[in-house]
């Protein structure tokens, strides 16, 4: 029987006396598994709607909103009395930095975004690739979507209030390519954009937008919009929109999408169509023509929505992007939604009257979580360290009761190192049993949330094995390290121990 075999036998026969050590390791494993796998899974399940709405897991934007020097929260709706200027660190400015869709509140100004040089065609990731290639996070990116937009006002019935929306440029051919082999886009009525629509004043809307407070316009009807005129600053990249000077635009609604069931293909697999209720899809060329009408050379890229291969890398990816591109605003949708909720906002696409959001509160809630995460990992390592120490202490106690047995092995010719291997086997096995007992219940919960988030089984398996490897690896390393204590103690036991008791 090998020394590893003897270790296995010893674990089995002494298991009753190792319950405390196994339990300690199981608790540590449970804590660490929760930290590394359950939390991201909960995020995936918890923020799926918002991620769908915003088009990705991480938003990168180089634009900052220029707004009135007046308090945006107090003013509520932009009107002719608003004058737009570059924000300093007033509330609106903070809000603008935090929330990319604040184009609704005012105007946009690029601040060094490489993609600001010109609009990128939808699904053309060249611009984004240039941005993402520079960071390690690139291999975690499943897809990236530059969004070209123009802000619009939609007058509500009675004409006294306006709802803020935006025109989103789409490449019909690229969309069709993305949807190849999939059921989507599911239309509740009408048709999707066609190649021949380019340059035409046509639009596709979200079938659900009416329930979100937008004007009721069915397929075949006409969307009456007000498009604020653009004012270019001293530099061509400085763009502001003057809501006091709007151009009326009429778009014919050719179809309405059922965004509940539509799917589109990404390298990570099919995902629900990413769509915001305030978005009005227009052909890319049409958007450019409207941008010209508003006074711009072409429709600007507002933001880049980045989808990751999995959300476990979310925080690291955001941190890396922030480090690599300090001139850009980078944040996780999950954090944004948290901040929005904490600040009392209802949903990302919202009626201005409903917001009541304090920009300061919102920005404060978007504090990077790096420190908290590091503390979490420190806590995880501490938990495993304590558990490994308990395993080691337990073994030391067990060994003191087995001195004679080990001495007999030494007398029979077992070398010190071989006895140490036997003891280390026991330490590792006890740790691994505890580790597995703590890992799987938590991981099962995580798997349920991942399944509910429509993640493929293959990806779930890879994630699970990865997490299992991390948890077991840490437990193994620490149990080997602290297992050295009883192992060294066993090496010091001499054959004479067996004789003394004779």
């Amino acid at each position, binding site marked *: 029987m090998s020394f590893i075999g003897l270790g296995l036998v010893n674990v089995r026969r002494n298991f009753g006396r190792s319950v405390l050590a196994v339990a300690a390791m199981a608790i540590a494993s449970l804590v660490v598994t929760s930290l590394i796998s359950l939390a991201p899974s909960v995020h995936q399940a918890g923020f799926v709607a918002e991620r769908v709405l915003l088009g990705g897991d991480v938003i990168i934007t180089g634009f900052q909103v220029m707004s009135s020097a007046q308090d945006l929260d107090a003013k509520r709706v932009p009107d002719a009395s608003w004058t737009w200027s570059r924000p300093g660190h007033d509330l609106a400015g903070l809000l603008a930095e935090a929330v990319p869709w604040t184009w609704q509140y005012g105007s946009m100004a690029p601040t060094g975004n490489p993609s600001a040089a010109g609009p990128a065609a939808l699904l053309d990731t060249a611009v984004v690739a240039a941005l993402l290639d520079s960071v390690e996070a690139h291999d975690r990116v499943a897809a990236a979507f530059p969004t070209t937009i123009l802000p619009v006002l939609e007058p509500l019935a009675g004409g006294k209030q306006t709802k803020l929306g935006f025109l989103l440029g789409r490449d019909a051919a690229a969309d069709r390519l993305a949807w190849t082999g999939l059921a989507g886009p599911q239309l509740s009525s009408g048709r999707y954009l066609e190649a021949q629509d380019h340059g035409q004043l046509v639009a596709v809307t979200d079938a659900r937008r009416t329930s979100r407070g937008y004007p009721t316009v069915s397929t075949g009807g006409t969307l009456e919009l007000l498009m604020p005129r653009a004012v270019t600053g001293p530099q061509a990249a400085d763009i502001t929109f003057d809501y006091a000077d709007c151009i009326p635009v009429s778009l014919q609604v050719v179809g309405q999408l059922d965004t509940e069931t539509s799917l589109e293909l990404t390298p990570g697999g099919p995902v629900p169509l990413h769509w915001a209720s305030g978005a009005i899809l227009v052909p890319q060329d049409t958007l450019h023509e409207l941008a010209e009408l508003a006074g711009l050379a072409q429709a600007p890229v507002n933001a880049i929505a980045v989808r990751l291969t999995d959300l476990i890398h979310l925080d690291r990816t955001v941190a890396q992007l922030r480090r690599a591109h300090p001139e850009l605003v980078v944040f996780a949708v999950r954090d944004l939604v948290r901040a929005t909720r904490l600040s009392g906002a209802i949903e990302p696409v919202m009626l201005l009257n409903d917001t009541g959001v304090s920009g300061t509160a919102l920005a404060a809630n978007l504090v990077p979580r790096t420190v908290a995460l590091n503390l979490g990992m420190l806590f995880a390592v501490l938990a495993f360290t304590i558990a490994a120490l308990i395993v080691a202490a337990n073994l030391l106690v067990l060994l003191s009761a087995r001195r004679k*047995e080990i001495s007999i092995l030494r007398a*029979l010719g077992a070398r010190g190192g071989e006895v140490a291997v036997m003891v280390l086997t026991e330490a590792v096995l006890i740790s691994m049993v505890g580790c597995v007992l703590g890992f799987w219940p938590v991981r099962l919960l995580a798997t349920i949330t991942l399944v509910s988030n429509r993640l493929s089984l293959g990806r779930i398996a890879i994630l699970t094995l990865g997490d299992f490897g991390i948890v077991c690896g840490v437990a193994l390393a620490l149990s080997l390290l602290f297992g050295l204590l009883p192992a060294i103690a066993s090496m010091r036991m001499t054959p004479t121990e*067996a004789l003394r008791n004779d």
Partner: protein
Amino acid sequence: MISPNLRAVNLTKTYHVNELVWAVRNLYVDIYPGDFVVLTGPSGSGKSTLLHLLAGLDRPVYGDVVLEGQRYSRLDEDGLSRLRRGRIGFVYQFFNLIPYLNAQDNVALPLTFAGCPMPEARGRAAELLEMVGMRGRMRHVPSQLSGGEQQRVAIARALANEPDFLMADEPTGNLDSARAEEIAGLFRRLNREMGKTVLVVSHSDIFHSSANRILSLLDGRLDTERKL
């Protein structure tokens, strides 16, 4: 002229138990191939200590043991382990079997320590157990065996790696007279038929008929030596 293959040279071992105790004192002993040596003497005379020193189970404070030119003092703990594993089989008064392993695995243990694959080790263990008359009880754990049976298993274990030396510390001290006779007979057979060099510590004279030399110790020194 046959030269000794195991020598104790000026061997000295002391203990501190409130005062300095000379367990073995400046002892010279030569053991020749095929010897059947009985170490005898009153309690505390140092016979067991001498045997442990000769077996490499303990280290002297002075002097050395030389086995076929190999000095124990020049071996580290692992070196002594290798020596015990391959060259010396040791039998204890209280058997010292591993309590959770059956007889067969107890015997197979030293073989696996020496790198023998487990199936092969078990086969060899079965042969050894048959030789000591324990084939029928090889699946039994020590607690299911009588004292005499446990000692037979311990002897089989000591023979596992085919050692040149078989050393035993009071192997019959815990057995009734009938079982003691059987064990003594077994040692005689191992010496005469298998050519093992046997060193036995014993209070009684049960091994005297088998021995060719009887060394009597007193106060850690060699008192008398009888050649038979």
